[in-house]
């Protein structure tokens, strides 16, 4: 028996076949586990793809409505509606798909396009802050979202251009980190995204 001997035989953590119990996966996702349990769970997950897939599926399918709540805070109604279309669109389509699990970014059904500047992780000055991205074609509408460190939406703006300057009235705090991304609304209710970029506002 190794150091994990006691945990390996704990029926609360492991099934008879040596995998994590559904109870433990649910408790782990709900962050209702002790430090020891958390360690045992993570140790097992590192070597067991099957339980990682269970965890990913339970996390994604079992977490109903989380995205919607996240979006509902502090957004103008119109922007919230557009964002809901962008973000919930792929998920809704996914519901009728036979998509195999765990294909990562692509599984979300969202194509990528390139953010040009500021580069990821850049330290930027407030008075010269302009966001730029590659064009996704003519007649495409873009939605830029700026969030604080917790992912709460701080500022959002739509444009048909491929750049946006930050209006002065958007009061970003110096020395703070923010995240930004642009979603492009394409034809046929499709969308693509730059993915998340981080910026640090110069003190």
């Amino acid at each position: 028996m190794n150091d994990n001997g006691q945990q390996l035989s704990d029926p609360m953590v492991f099934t008879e076949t040596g995998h994590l119990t559904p109870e433990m996966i649910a408790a782990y996702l709900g962050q209702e586990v002790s430090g020891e349990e958390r360690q045992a769970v993570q140790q097992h997950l590192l070597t067991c793809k099957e339980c990682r897939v269970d965890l990913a599926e339970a996390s994604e399918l079992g977490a109903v409505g989380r995205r919607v709540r996240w979006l509902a805070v502090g957004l103008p109604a119109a922007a919230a509606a557009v964002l809901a279309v962008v973000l919930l669109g792929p998920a809704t389509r996914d519901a009728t798909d036979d998509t195999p699990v765990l294909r990562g970014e692509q599984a979300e059904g969202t194509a990528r396009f390139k953010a040009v500047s500021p580069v990821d992780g850049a330290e930027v000055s407030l008075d010269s802050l302009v966001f730029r991205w590659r064009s996704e074609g003519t007649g495409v509408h873009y939605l830029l979202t700026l969030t604080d460190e917790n992912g709460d939406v701080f500022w959002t703006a739509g444009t048909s251009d491929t750049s946006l300057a930050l209006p002065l009235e958007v009061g970003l705090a110096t020395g703070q980190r923010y995240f930004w991304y642009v979603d492009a609304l394409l034809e046929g209710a499709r969308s693509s995204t730059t993915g998340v970029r981080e910026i640090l506002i110069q003190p």
Partner: protein
Amino acid sequence: MTPPVPRQLAELLNAPHAAARNGAWDAFMGEYSKLLLRTAQRASSSRDDAMDRYIFILEQLQEDDFRRLRAFTADGRGKFTTWLVVVARRLCVDHHRSKYGRPQAGHEPTGANSVAHAARRNLLDLIANEIDVDGLEDEGSLHPDAELLSAERRQTLTAAVAELGLGDQLLLTLRFEDDISVEKIAPMIGLQSRFQVHRRLRHVLEQLRRKLIDRGMTES
């Protein structure tokens, strides 16, 4: 904090007689049939398979006076829906095994070692690529096939990864080996948002980079 047992589940498990049980089962299905169907769909390669599995899940959940569902109240931690997805997924695996006599691809314990070994190799290559291991090395010491990690570098990187905390090792595995998006990883490692995952990932990769520099893969 113990979450309450969902009303539909409590009513089902406490139904006093057959008629009440039938009504409670309908109410339960009204709430969870979509989730169960979706779980079955995502564990299946065709619509027929998905429907077979969905029906199997329902039969198994009802068996022995809802024995499987009663197990949830025995522990009571975590969300019922996350628990139910895992139970349903494992029933899908059982169904596959009972139908074809062997586990589904990706669920087999036999040969899992070699699969895990290959995945591990792949993981190291992906991490090395992220932290630009080649850029860290003297030009003269570059491996003839720059795409592949040399055995020595692989060993150094393996050791450096093993020194990380379990959570950070899991983060690397989920991101690079399983190719899961940062957004989906967040709840899987107890972080609040994809932004925190993004930051954590950068921090971990920077840590690895420094460790490699410390161990002689110098930049100059």
